């Protein structure tokens, strides 16, 4: 075991960690605003990745507008899901499980639609900074991965400001914590829930356009991303955006160490065991405030 190899796998782990964190971020945003566990968060990213591919590789647009188109697509899917799936379920008195299942159905639908219109192949996408590499102590990391890390942190900071400073962010929190009270003071609660999904979709879109160049777009990628993102969000306390990224980072590093010290075949066994142990030992995640469940 050389130091270079170790650093290399640690860098891969950190990059993956931010990928999981970005997905977890979207799950946290939606949970925070609506108390819905969104099982199709990874599929928001899938759609964004496909739109990015179509714009930048197929139509040959420059990279920045293509990225924006991807993020916009994520937001539109989030809006659609809220209006057509989540809202009718809520109106008919759905419980926690119904929301989970309805979004799970949405995840299958998105994946099936991607298969139908996009095909079975994995598509590679150019990233920010092309395929250039950076040297870190003899190990290498893609320039795009550095962008991914920087932008993830930017998104976390932006969300933090949004929830604490912006009126609409505060309104979203009010609508989530006390819907009746929020209605009385004139907050349009259903609108806030829709906005939450638009925001979650946009975060999923950002995740999608940042992840796709690293892992290639494939119609099956959504569910596994959701699972890993959910893990990240739970480790870092569901509903806490900063926690989701920290949880993702922990998960990514655990996986990297598992690959180095055990074998790559057992990567998922170790990360999933880690998840179960965390949930049993620290049920509210590592950033829970004492005596309160969730964010």
């Amino acid at each position, binding site marked *: 075991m050389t130091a270079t190899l170790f650093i290399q796998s640690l860098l891969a782990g950190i990059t993956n960690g931010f990928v999981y964190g970005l997905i977890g971020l979207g799950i946290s945003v939606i949970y925070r605003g609506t108390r819905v566990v969104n099982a199709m968060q990874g599929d928001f990213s899938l759609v964004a990745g496909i739109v990015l591919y179509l714009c930048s590789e197929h139509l040959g647009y420059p990279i920045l507008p293509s990225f924006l188109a991807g993020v916009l697509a994520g937001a539109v899917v989030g809006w659609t899901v809220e209006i057509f799936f989540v809202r009718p379920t809520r109106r008919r008195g759905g419980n926690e499980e119904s929301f989970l299942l309805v979004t799970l159905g949405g995840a299958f639908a998105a994946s099936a639609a991607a298969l139908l219109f996009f095909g079975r192949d994995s598509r590679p996408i150019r990233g920010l900074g092309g395929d250039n590499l950076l040297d870190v102590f003899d190990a290498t990391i893609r320039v795009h991965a550095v962008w991914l890390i920087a932008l993830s942190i930017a998104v976390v900071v932006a969300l933090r400001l949004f929830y604490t400073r912006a009126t609409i962010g505060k309104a979203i929190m009010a609508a989530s914590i006390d819907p009746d009270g929020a209605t009385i003071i004139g907050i349009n609660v259903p609108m806030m829930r829709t906005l939450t999904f638009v925001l979650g979709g946009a975060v999923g879109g950002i995740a999608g356009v940042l992840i796709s160049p690293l892992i290639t777009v494939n119609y099956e990628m959504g569910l596994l991303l959701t699972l890993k993102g959910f893990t990240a969000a739970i480790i870092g306390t569901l509903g806490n955006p900063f926690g989701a990224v920290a949880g993702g980072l922990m998960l990514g590093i655990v996986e990297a160490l598992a690959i180095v010290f055990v074998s790559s075949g057992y990567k998922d066994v170790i990360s999933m065991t880690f*998840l179960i142990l965390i949930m049993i030992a620290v049920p509210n995640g590592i950033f829970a405030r004492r005596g309160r469940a969730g964010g």
Partner: protein
Amino acid sequence: MAAAGVLALAVIPLLASREVVDLLVFTALYSIAGIGVTFLLGQCGIISLAENVFYGIGAYATAYVTTALGWHWLVALVIGMAIGGAVATILAWPVLRLSGHFLALATLALATIGHVLFLEWDWITGGTLGIGGVAQISFFGCVLNTPQRFYYLAWIVVGIVFWLYSNLLDSRAGCAMRAMRDRPDAAMVLGIDIHQLKVKVFVLSAMVGSLAGSLFASYVTFVSVDSFGIERAVSFLLIAVVGGAQTIIGTIFGAAFVTLAPNLLSRLGDVHPLLFALALVLTVIFLPQGIGGFLQQQIRRLFELSRLGGDA
């Protein structure tokens, strides 16, 4: 009405094509595994996505014991159920301390772990290549080697398992479960050991899951890791949701939906997975009690109408 249903089930294989009978055998197998998940969800409020693990344990136990050791299929089936139950006990004891989303995610994590281990422990499971030549079930020299023959065994097992489960539902333990699901605090005050009861139901669902897995292995005579992935766990959960988690008989409708719908829709071409997913979404939104719950409601309404008519 139940008698008519049983009669219809008994006559179908004489009339229907081999392909249809094959689908109905799978409906039976999925009903057996599905009832475990349905009962967990409907009576205990536990979302289990780990049923694929126990289905796999049953199937691999039968495959390994009948091919590598050459033992009788019945011994293999019992060994499978014993291993399934033992593994479930060890896993459920810590994991069932969790509840709600966390428990659902934990079982999904177990499903992932199970799938990876089925793939990696290829000295026992054959990995991606799988195990072929699994012994078929035979009774007194009559080998159940066609869908028609296997059909009757599968549905008799469904009948027995459903009968046992409906007895359990009506028993003291069933009452305790409903108390635990609806008013956990009250149940605790009444001295119900919630955790122990949950573990027992989970172990039971694992055992019927591995029973279904054993039958599956004997029926198709070939098992590979593809049959025990996350998709399988999700489809078992769908059986419970679509069929209606609070009714036992609904499981059969759920199992029929999961096996027949993709087959019927596949005639429409590549669009079928999309239609299946949308059908699922619509069911969850518009039939929150599942098909079983919906039918139960309609029948009850019919009875009430006829009684009102009689009074007037």
